[in-house]
């Protein structure tokens, strides 16, 4: 289980400017869940994941199965990001070797199945891949590292809808009961049927943490719930346009 307690993160900018990216975030991720992490741009989704991975300094506490996250247990976490964390000059085959060398639990069989499923070339440098293929490969690596907790940050920015649909189905099919996925995305409606829990961040704070079953029981769909939580005002566009027209 990953436990995050009172996590805060402040970015210090130039000229002494400080931006509070996360404020007292507390969250628990038990094993075997697919959790959606939602929020507007700048809400702190990426920052939260980077803190979990130790890529950023933070205040607060993050533990993995009761232990702080260090080099001893970091292999239990994998990460797929739209920024891509693979080596652009290496081939998929080279990555297989690299991951095999550094991550003892690397899932070779799963790797080959997914490469075949997504029809990705094994012997071409990744820099020659299309954006969609790069995203797929990034996700393949995260799923095959042998991690118990798979963090995905906007993994499909640039993929077409069929591609994404395929991925969600594969994800549900291949994940083992012990594997946990934390998926940050703006594609709320697409993932609504695949996640078991939704965590909503707003301005660096968790504003909702709800299971999709509870939502179903309450007769609400995820999108409506998120809009309500965010106090989304659908009429504001119409009002702005009317205002502009009046001024014109």
């Amino acid at each position, binding site marked *: 289980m990953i436990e995050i307690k009172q996590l805060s993160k402040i970015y210090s900018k130039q000229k002494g400017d400080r931006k509070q990216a996360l404020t007292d975030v507390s969250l628990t991720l038990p094993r075997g869940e697919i959790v959606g992490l939602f929020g507007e741009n700048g809400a702190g989704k990426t920052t939260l994941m980077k803190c979990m991975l130790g890529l950023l300094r933070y205040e607060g506490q993050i533990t993995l199965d009761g232990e702080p996250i260090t080099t001893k247990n970091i292999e239990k976490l994998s990460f797929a990001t739209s*920024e891509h964390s693979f080596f652009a000059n290496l081939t998929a085959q080279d990555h297989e070797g690299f991951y095999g060398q550094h991550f003892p639990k690397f899932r070779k069989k799963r790797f080959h199945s997914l490469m075949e499923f997504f029809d990705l070339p094994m012997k071409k440098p990744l820099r020659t891949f299309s954006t969609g293929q790069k995203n797929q490969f990034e996700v393949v690596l995260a799923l095959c590292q042998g991690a118990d907790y798979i963090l995905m940050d906007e993994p499909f920015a640039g993929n077409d809808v069929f591609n994404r649909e395929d991925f969600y189905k594969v994800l549900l099919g291949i994940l083992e009961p012990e594997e946990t996925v934390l998926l940050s995305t703006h594609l709320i409606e697409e993932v609504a049927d695949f996640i078991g829990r939704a965590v909503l961040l707003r301005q660096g704070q968790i504003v909702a943490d709800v299971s999709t079953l509870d939502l179903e029981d309450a007769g609400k769909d995820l999108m409506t719930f998120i809009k309500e939580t965010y106090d989304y005002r659908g009429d504001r566009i119409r009002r702005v346009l009317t205002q502009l027209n009046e001024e014109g």
Partner: protein
Amino acid sequence: MKSNEGKQKKHLYAPPGMSLWRERALFWVLLTVAILHSLEFFSTLQSHLQSLYERLEQYENWGMINRVTMTDLVVLLRGKFVLFGMPILLCLMAIGNRYRYYHQGSKSIYLMRRLPDRRQWYRSCLVQPTLRILLVIGIMAVLLLVFYAVYMNQVPEGCLLPNQWQKLWRWNL
């Protein structure tokens, strides 16, 4: 199989996928130029040795000038090692380039920073350039010893000023 193992070992000491042939070639070229330049010491030594002697017309021969002393070794060495700074500078730049590589084309730095063996990141940036810097320093040391030995051997005892070795460390080479 062997080539795969070789590739994996290569990944340990260099950023995976980084093309290093230019850096390697430039290093060896600069090192060779620096060594060749330092060997100019021998011609400097030769000309200073010659200046210890004068032409004795009546004997149609050369004779040593009275009470003449040989120029200090440290003076002969001045500027001879300066070009070794180039390969060392290249190695320092190589460390920076390797670090930057993990931010180019993708953010592979995220992967390197979450490897169970965190030292791998430092290793891939530092080991090769550091070994090369040590090699340059080693070559400089060997050359210095050779130059010292040749100097002490070639300079006539009567012309030799004392404390040549100690004087080396009071000057900038």
